[in-house]
């Protein structure tokens, strides 16, 4: 990027944009971070908009759904009053100065327009207010999520990270040593990566949980114990943790091992490795260079896999009745509990975006092309 100031060395005052682009030119990593942050901000806005628009595509409004369920046993006056409460709660109608529902000549409430609803939704979401559950009225959606999120995070984060590390190590070993290593690891990885997460989950529950009764099949902890940081609770929870952990872990290991194996085999055949070998460079050094190059696409793979993994793991949670977000979504789907569904999906999307952003930043720090500012931005 050439700036005006470079063409006129005599100019004393720099235009602000010239100064900032100079700063970015001399700090490629900073430029990378800012670029990615801007990109994710746009993606985030699109995701939020999708999250708002899609549930409103159908013709049934959430209030109709509640009233269809609850209205049957109520007399007309109470039903009308309750409907008014719900309409206000979901921001579907215009209010007058007194906070009452504005009605047209026929006595029907005046609906708010979609953009107004969207603005309200954005404002409330930004404050962490995701609305009220229909099914568990008057529990707040944020409360339900706060109860479920730790379980999902505790299950998925270690599983994904640990599985990624183990899978990449195995893949690299298989590619480097070939022979027996490869003949055992590769077919095994192929097999486990092809098994759908929920199928493996069902098999594990059935074999270890129900037939052999080695481990508890469903749930997150023993029923008699309340969640707390006591020894009894943690022991019980870790007991329940094992099966869902294995069901997700095994599959990630398989996926990553296959990816890493083919990356390493590819790198081993490249000219720079051959050249280094011809020069008589130490094997350890070559391996270090090679793994670094093979690692970068795997990091991108981790970011992309997170999106899919979250989905697969949601279904796994359902099979194990694990009290996380997957279970919360499932219960909400079964009860048409829109606010909980959209709250959970919003949160999952935000988590996936954050994870992607994190991996992107990591790549920026590790990739020498980004560090020297010579990368074509992806």
């Amino acid at each position: 990027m050439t700036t005006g100031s470079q063409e006129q060395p005599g100019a004393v005052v720099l235009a602000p944009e010239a100064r900032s682009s100079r700063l970015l030119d001399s700090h490629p990593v900073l430029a990378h971070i800012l670029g990615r942050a801007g990109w994710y901000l746009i993606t985030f806005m699109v995701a939020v908009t999708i999250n708002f628009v899609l549930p409103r595509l159908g013709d049934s409004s959430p209030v109709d759904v509640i009233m269809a369920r609850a209205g049957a046993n109520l007399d007309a006056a109470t039903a009308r009053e309750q409907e008014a409460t719900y309409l206000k709660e979901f921001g579907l109608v215009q209010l007058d100065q007194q906070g009452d529902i504005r009605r047209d000549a026929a006595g029907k409430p005046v609906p708010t327009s979609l953009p107004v609803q969207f603005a309200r939704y954005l404002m409330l979401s930004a404050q962490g207010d995701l609305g009220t559950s229909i099914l568990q009225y008057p529990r707040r959606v944020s409360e339900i999520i706060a109860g479920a999120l730790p379980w999902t995070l505790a299950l998925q984060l270690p599983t994904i990270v640990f599985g990624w590390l183990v899978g990449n190590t195995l893949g690299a070993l298989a590619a480097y040593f070939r022979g027996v290593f490869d003949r055992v690891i590769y077919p095994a990885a192929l097999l486990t990566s092809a098994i759908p997460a929920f199928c493996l989950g069902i098999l594990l529950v059935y074999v270890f949980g129900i037939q052999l009764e080695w481990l508890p099949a469903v749930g997150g902890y023993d029923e008699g114990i309340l969640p707390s940081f006591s020894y009894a609770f943690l022991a019980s929870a870790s007991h329940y943790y094992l099966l869902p952990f294995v069901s997700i872990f095994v599959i990630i290991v398989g996926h990553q091992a296959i990816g890493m194996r083919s990356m390493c085999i590819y790198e081993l055949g490249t000219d720079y490795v051959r050249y280094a070998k011809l020069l008589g460079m130490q094997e350890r050094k070559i391996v270090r260079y090679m793994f670094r190059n093979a690692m970068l696409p795997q990091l991108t793979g981790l970011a992309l896999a997170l999106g899919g993994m979250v989905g697969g793991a949601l279904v796994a949670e359902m099979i194990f009745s694990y009290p996380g977000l997957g279970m919360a979504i499932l219960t909400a789907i079964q009860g048409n509990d829109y606010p909980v569904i959209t709250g959970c999906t919003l949160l999952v999307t935000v988590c996936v975006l954050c994870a992607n952003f994190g991996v992107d930043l990591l790549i920026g720090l590790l990739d020498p092309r980004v560090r020297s500012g010579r990368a074509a931005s992806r």
Partner: protein
Amino acid sequence: MFRGLLRSPGFILGVGLFALTLVAALLLPLLMPLNVEQRVGLAYTPPSREHWLGTDHLGIDMWSLLVHGLRSSLYVGLLAGTVATLVGTLIGVYGGYKGGLLDDILTVATNLFLVIPTLIVLILLSSSLDEGRSLTLIALLIGLTTWTWSARAVRAQSSSLRHRDHVALARINGYGTFHIVVLHILPYLASYIFMVFILQTASGILTEASISMLGLGPYDSVSLGTILNEAIRNEALGDGAWWAFLPATMLVTVIAFSLYIVNTAMESVFNPRLR
């Protein structure tokens, strides 16, 4: 090249397994009476001579359900795979060959939807479509939400073809974009696009099964996913009624496995550097 494929054991095994499920899905309904509407016994009756896989929680013949489920799942997978591959290829080839502003816009859109988790979008869509969730609609939705990574993969390939001599020659000779893309770019991508199609089909089948297991499956048909959903919701696991969920689980696994190894085998044949 094709001889190489035929010599690869993974390819033979995968194609064989998938062909087997396809033939079973097509022929079995013609060869034997299948009934998924009528109760033929008590809930969760174990397998017997008349009912090879016993009955489900309503007393419906499990074997019939399984064959119907297999048909629906293959249908969803192939339709979703076709849609996703078509959309992805169109966007990828066009953007990769043409370049310029339109390519930039398409790439931005692709990368954007690549990051937003597909299953989440599908959950939102399906739950707002309450009544009208037919099998075909679900397949179309899956296809229209999963095309992103095939677009990205195809675009990378086609933009590398763009500067090849034979493409430049065709352009100098005054051929139009359509002509060049169809005759000089697509043939080079054919094997690649076929691999993309296989993966998209596998992911279509798995995605449908996932949404159905969450209770957002089709209202008008039995699929392998809805069988599993019913089995789990109705305590088949706890009751030890293995026939209600194990066959369906195995079937999904076999289909996914066969498609994956076909893809892996093709990759190692077409990309000798990986061997």
